[in-house]
Every structure is written in structure tokens, then in C-alpha cells.
């Protein structure tokens, strides 16, 4: 067996310089490194030329590949930290009378587009995620959706295929729903409402049509949905403005009319109508048999609303019970559960026991219902809405977690939890306009600022629904992990480790301490009904636990 020859001293020396240059270029140079590199530079004039060459080529590659740095890619959306360069730059040009912000969008759009064209940057390198994201972010194409209905309520629902399960609020595209057990209420965009009982299979075809392969359902159709049709293996039911139940088994189908009238299109017999109080059994090859309807055999929309309310109450109670345990976690720095707020209260109590962080102050936003009826939440609507707090300690690892219901991503940066300004060691947790979640960490001790972005999380379908977000900064494992509803959606390696200082901070907004006359607008639009901040990196199972209670609010 042969082994690789040991490198000579000269080779080791070259390697060491390469490593130092690399650290210099990535902003990870330590003071000790700097001292060594400086001595080498002073002793070796050729090394000076080398480091400058490396610096220039590195800058060109970063710019050309649209990665790591910035240049025009980030002129349009970020800067030194990757985040907020424009805003930072805007602050510095405050002496000009004209609003730099007003100039920005159009100018940057022109410049970015033109630079891409003029430099051929678009052709420069194989397209990857970043270029796709960039392309999406500047796309003028109007977003579209194929959905025809929304899942309005659910009670103890389990789905046959976990990869095709749906939460309350999920838009539903045409296709099959396979409910294993429990109840769900589907609201079609036409206005028709269907309660499906598990086990059951329902195929959504349009906002006015569905097909029930098996299972039991009830339907209510307002006048706007007149003509709503549900097919079965034995025929179809066309609603004429009514309430009815449908039970589909291997042996045949039964239709029960509770109110109004339906048309029965059985395969084996001519079309006929069925009136209130009547039921009909349809076999594959037999004639239609008419008998009395049995409304008690079906769960109607009114019944699922009642059951849903009871289920939500149970979830709320379970959350309350678990709260005491969460509050006593010694690593918990802050937990604002938005509970017990009286009208006019402007102080939010920090539930974390023994934390150095005091209560927070509510500015602007008002109390509304959260995930469950009666559960408090704060609604952020105006540009001034925010919750202010002071974090008087340094941390090395941390976890931010929040239950949010995003109304829309109105701003380029939509603040979740932001240190004031962006001083060394500060942290910025926010949602970008394109739906990615960003944790920005301001550089310190000579290290550059770094953004840790998730993939796109907030697609239009996710807006208006309760979502649990968490981000973990783990300085030991040197990674940042983004979680959505308890599941990892992306992780990034930590570039630099140094003590972090959140300092004065805001939930739902951002204050630029450097300016008093004009601040960039980065307010969050939506509701937050819980925010937690730990001084350690929570494990995946722990994130799963704090996000594990379903967000089945039907308050909207």
C-alpha cells in the first residue's frame, strides 16, 4: 500500500497562503490570520499581486454567478449584508431632498434589467435556483391558481395518503381527496359546501362539480351554486338549490333530500326529480327506489361547525396545558402568548420564567382572535404597528419561533423579529417579498454580514393560514435551519461565529435607529399569536413539539 508523499515546507506554505486568502475573501479571517497574512504580504511583493488578482477575480465571479455577493442582483433587493443595502444606502443619502426610495424601484429595475442584457449575465452560467428566484422576483406574469375549493373545517381528519393531506385553509385543486377518517368541510368557490366523512373519496372537478367514488357526504348549495353536480358510479345528483346527503357504497348510491329539490341522473333510468323528505337508492342495473329521507344519518355543515368548535376548544386547552411546561424551560428567553390582554392593554407579558427580558410594549396593533376562538393574537396592519422589547444579553445559538397568519407580502422585507438598525451581531428574521424566509446576521469583528435564506415558503396558497415558523441558529453545529410547521424546509452552513446581540428589537416591524426623519417601511402584514425566543438551538423534535398543535382556526 502506498501513501501520498508528505508536502514540502514550500508546498505547505503555499497551502497556508491559499487558505488565508480564501478566508480574506470570505470575510472569515481572524486577527491571528490577519497578522500572519500581513507579515507574508510585507515579506513577499508577489503575494500582494496575487491577493489582488484573487480579489478581483473573486469579485467578478461573485457578480457574474449572481452568488455570494451582490452587485446588481442585490442592488434590487439587498446589499452588504445581502439585506437592506438599499435601505442602508437610502439612509445615507438622507441629505438629498428627493426620496431615494422613490427613485429606487424604477431605477434599479432599469439598471438590473439593462445590466443583465448588456453584460450577458443571463447567459453567463447555467441557471440555478438563484437565477430562477431572481427571474421570479422580477416576473411580470400574474400569479395564477387552479384551485376550485378550500378546506374550511376539519374534525379529527386523517388522510389516506399523508403526502396528500390538507390543513384547514388549504386551497384545493381539481383532483382526488382520500379521507381515511374524520370529517372535513369543503367550500367550493361557487359557494357550495360539502361535508365529507371518512372513509371517503371525493374528486373535485370544478367549482361546480365533484365526483364521489365512495363514502358519505352532505351538501348545501346556495343560489349562487345552483346546478352544482356530484357524480357517483351509479349516476349523478344535480342540485337545484337545496341540502342533501349522498351515501356511496359498492352496492349503490343513496340520495337523501333534506331541503329543496335535486335532479337525479341515474345511469339505469331516465332523469327524475327528488323533493324534500324523499330519498332514492340507485343501483347499477336496478330501477330507482324511493323512500323517506333520513337526515340524522349525515353530518351536515351545521353539525361539523359544532364539532369543529368542540375540537378547537380541546386543542386550545391542550395548548394552555403545555404552556406551563414551555414557560419553565430555562433556555427560554421570551415567550409572548398574547393571552390575557384587556382592551387597551399596551403591555405584553413575557411568560418565560426567570428571563432577563421584561415585558414588551405594543405599538399600534390591536388584539384579535388567534388560532382558536378566544385565543389572543395581535393584528399588524399599519406601517407603524409593532411590539418593542429589549434583549439585554449576548447569545451564541438561538431559536426564534412564531405562529403567524400572513395576509400578504406587501413589502420587500416583511419583518418578523428584527434588531433595531443592523449593528454588529444583530439579527433580522423576516419574510422576503418572494416568499423566502431570511435570517440575516450582521457581521462583527471584521466578519461580513450573512443572510441565511430558506427556499420559497409563502406561496399565495399559504397566505391567510396559520403557519408555524421557526429558525435555529446553531453555532456549535454551525448551521441555520428554517422550519415550517415543524418540518425542516432548508438549512445553511453558518459562515461566521461570534456573539450575537439582538439588543432593542421589534416583532412585526423594524426601526432604523440611525435615522429619525425617514425609515424604510418593513412592517409585517398579518397576525401573530405566539412568539418564542430560546437561547439555544432547539432540536427538530422540540420544534415539532411546539408546532405540533394544529392551527385549525376557523375564525376568518
Amino acid at each position, binding site marked *: 500500500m502506498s501513501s501520498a508523499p508528505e508536502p514540502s515546507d514550500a508546498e505547505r506554505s503555499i*497551502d497556508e497562503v*491559499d*487558505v488565508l486568502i480564501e478566508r*480574506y475573501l*470570505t*470575510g472569515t479571517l481572524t*486577527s491571528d490570520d*490577519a*497578522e500572519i*497574512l*500581513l507579515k507574508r*504580504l510585507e515579506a513577499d511583493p508577489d503575494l*500582494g*499581486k*496575487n*491577493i*489582488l*488578482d*484573487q*480579489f*478581483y477575480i473573486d*469579485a*467578478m*465571479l461573485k*457578480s*457574474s*454567478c449572481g*452568488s*455570494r*455577493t451582490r*452587485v446588481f442582483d442585490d442592488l434590487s433587493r439587498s446589499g*452588504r449584508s445581502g439585506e437592506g*443595502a*438599499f435601505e*442602508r*444606502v437610502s439612509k*445615507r*443619502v438622507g441629505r*438629498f431632498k*428627493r426620496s*431615494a426610495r422613490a*427613485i429606487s424601484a*424604477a*431605477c434599479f429595475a*432599469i*439598471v438590473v434589467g*439593462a*445590466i443583465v442584457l*448588456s*453584460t*450577458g449575465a443571463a*447567459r453567463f*452560467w*447555467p441557471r*440555478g435556483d*438563484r437565477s430562477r428566484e431572481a427571474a421570479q422576483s422580477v416576473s411580470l406574469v400574474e400569479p395564477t391558481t387552479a384551485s376550485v375549493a378550500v378546506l374550511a373545517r376539519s374534525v379529527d381528519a386523517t388522510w389516506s395518503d399523508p403526502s396528500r393531506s390538507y390543513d384547514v385553509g388549504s386551497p384545493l385543486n381539481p383532483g382526488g381527496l382520500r379521507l381515511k377518517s374524520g370529517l372535513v368541510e369543503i367550500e367550493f368557490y361557487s359557494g357550495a359546501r360539502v361535508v365529507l366523512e371518512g372513509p371517503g373519496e371525493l374528486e373535485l372537478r370544478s367549482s361546480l362539480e365533484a365526483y364521489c367514488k365512495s363514502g358519505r357526504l352532505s351538501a348545501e348549495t346556495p343560489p349562487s351554486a345552483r346546478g352544482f353536480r356530484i357524480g357517483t358510479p351509479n349516476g349523478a345528483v344535480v342540485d337545484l338549490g337545496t341540502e342533501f346527503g349522498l351515501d356511496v357504497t359498492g352496492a349503490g348510491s343513496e340520495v337523501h333530500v333534506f331541503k329543496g329539490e335535486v335532479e337525479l341522473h341515474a345511469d339505469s333510468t331516465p332523469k327524475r326529480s327528488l323533493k324534500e323528505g324523499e330519498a332514492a337508492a340507485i343501483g347499477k342495473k336496478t330501477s330507482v327506489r324511493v323512500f323517506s329521507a333520513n337526515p340524522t344519518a349525515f353530518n351536515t355543515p351545521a353539525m361539523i361547525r359544532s364539532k369543529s368548535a368542540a375540537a378547537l376548544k380541546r386543542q386550545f386547552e391542550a395548548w394552555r396545558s403545555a404552556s406551563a411546561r414551555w414557560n419553565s424551560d430555562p433556555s427560554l428567553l421570551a415567550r409572548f402568548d398574547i393571552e390575557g390582554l384587556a382592551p387597551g392593554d399596551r403591555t405584553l407579558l413575557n411568560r418565560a420564567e426567570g428571563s432577563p427580558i421584561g415585558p414588551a410594549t405594543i405599538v399600534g396593533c390591536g388584539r384579535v382572535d388567534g388560532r382558536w376562538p378566544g385565543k389572543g393574537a395581535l393584528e399588524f396592519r399599519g406601517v407603524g404597528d409593532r411590539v418593542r422589547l429589549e434583549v439585554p444579553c449576548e447569545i451564541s445559538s438561538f431559536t426564534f419561533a412564531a405562529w403567524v397568519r400572513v395576509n400578504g407580502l406587501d413589502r420587500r422585507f416583511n419583518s418578523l423579529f428584527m434588531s433595531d438598525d443592523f449593528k454588529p451581531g444583530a439579527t433580522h428574521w423576516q419574510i422576503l417579498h418572494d416568499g423566502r424566509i431570511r435570517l440575516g446576521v450582521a457581521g462583527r*469583528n*471584521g466578519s*461580513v454580514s450573512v443572510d441565511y435564506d430558506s427556499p420559497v415558503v409563502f406561496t399565495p396558497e399559504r397566505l391567510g393560514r396559520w403557519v408555524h415558523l421557526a429558525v435555529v441558529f446553531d453555532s456549535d453545529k454551525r448551521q441555520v435551519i428554517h422550519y415550517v410547521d415543524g418540518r425542516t424546509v432548508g438549512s445553511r*452552513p453558518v459562515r461566521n461565529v461570534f456573539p450575537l446581540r439582538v439588543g432593542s428589537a421589534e416583532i412585526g416591524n423594524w426601526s432604523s435607529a440611525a435615522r429619525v426623519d425617514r425609515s424604510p417601511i418593513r412592517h409585517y402584514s398579518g397576525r401573530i399569536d405566539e412568539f418564542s425566543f430560546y437561547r439555544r438551538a432547539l432540536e427538530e423534535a422540540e420544534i415539532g413539539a411546539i408546532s405540533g398543535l394544529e392551527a385549525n382556526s376557523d375564525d376568518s
Partner: protein
Amino acid sequence: MNREEAHAAQVFMAHHGFVMGLALKHAPWPGLAEDVLQQVFLEFISKAGRWDLDSDPKPLLATMTRLVAQRYWRERSREMPEMMRKLADHVRMLAEERTAPARYEEETDALRRCLEKLPEKSRSLIDMYYYADLSTAEIASQTGTRADTVCRAICRLREKLRICINRATRGGEAYV
């Protein structure tokens, strides 16, 4: 944005490579040149009414870039530990001593041609490092090698690209 500002933006756009080249020369610290570029852009647009945009804007942009770079350099280096500041100042001095004119745009175009000539393995490395944004440690774990080996490979690649760019910008063929 009014017509004047739009015109100024177009003028800047036509010279952004020139500004970037100067920014790299005057502010040779990672990430700083981009900040300078942005600031010069904003100041240029903000004062669009003052400039004679029909004449050559290079002297004006050069002055603005130098001043902004100096300001930013002061701000940035003030935050640095002493040894880091000494190193930064030394590198800046080396950059300022360079007499070659900034040819950023021309070189960027040459870089594109040089990248196209790279062997697949080298392209893959550049792709992972610059495009996929993987660290040297991550690339090392993916390719079954050591981080410092990756570091060295990237440095060698940049050197090769430098040589290729020099050759290409002197009218020679771009090859690596």
C-alpha cells in the same frame, strides 16, 4: 422617477463596470465595493439635475467613487480589530499602487469566455462554490476531499482565470 433621473440611471448603467472597477481598487475589502457601487449610484441619481449628462461622465463618476470609497473605508475599518485594519490598509495601499486602469467590464466579458473554456471538473467546482454558495468544507464533504484542498483548488482556478483573462484582453485566445 422623472425623465432626468431615468436618463441618469441609463448613463450610470452604461458605466457601471467602470465604477465597479474603481470601487474594487479603492475599497478592496470583501463586499465593500458593492456598497460603494450602490452608494455612487444613488448619489448620482439623486443629483441628476446637476450633471451635464451629455458630456463624458467618467471623471465625475471617478471622483464620486473615490470619495464614497474613502468614506466607506473609514467607516468599515473603524469597526475592525487593529490587526485586521492594518491588513486592510496594506491591501488597499497595494491596490492604490496599481497603475493599470480599471477594466472591469472588459475583463468581465473575458471572464465569461474563459469560464466557458474550463474543463467540466473545474466548472463544477466554480459552480458549487460561486453559484450554489457551498463553503469549501461543504464541497469537501461532497467530493470526499479536504477543505484546504478545495481552498487550494479554487485559488489555482482563479489564478488560471486571471491568466486567461489577461491573454484574452490582449487580443489573444481565451483558453485555460
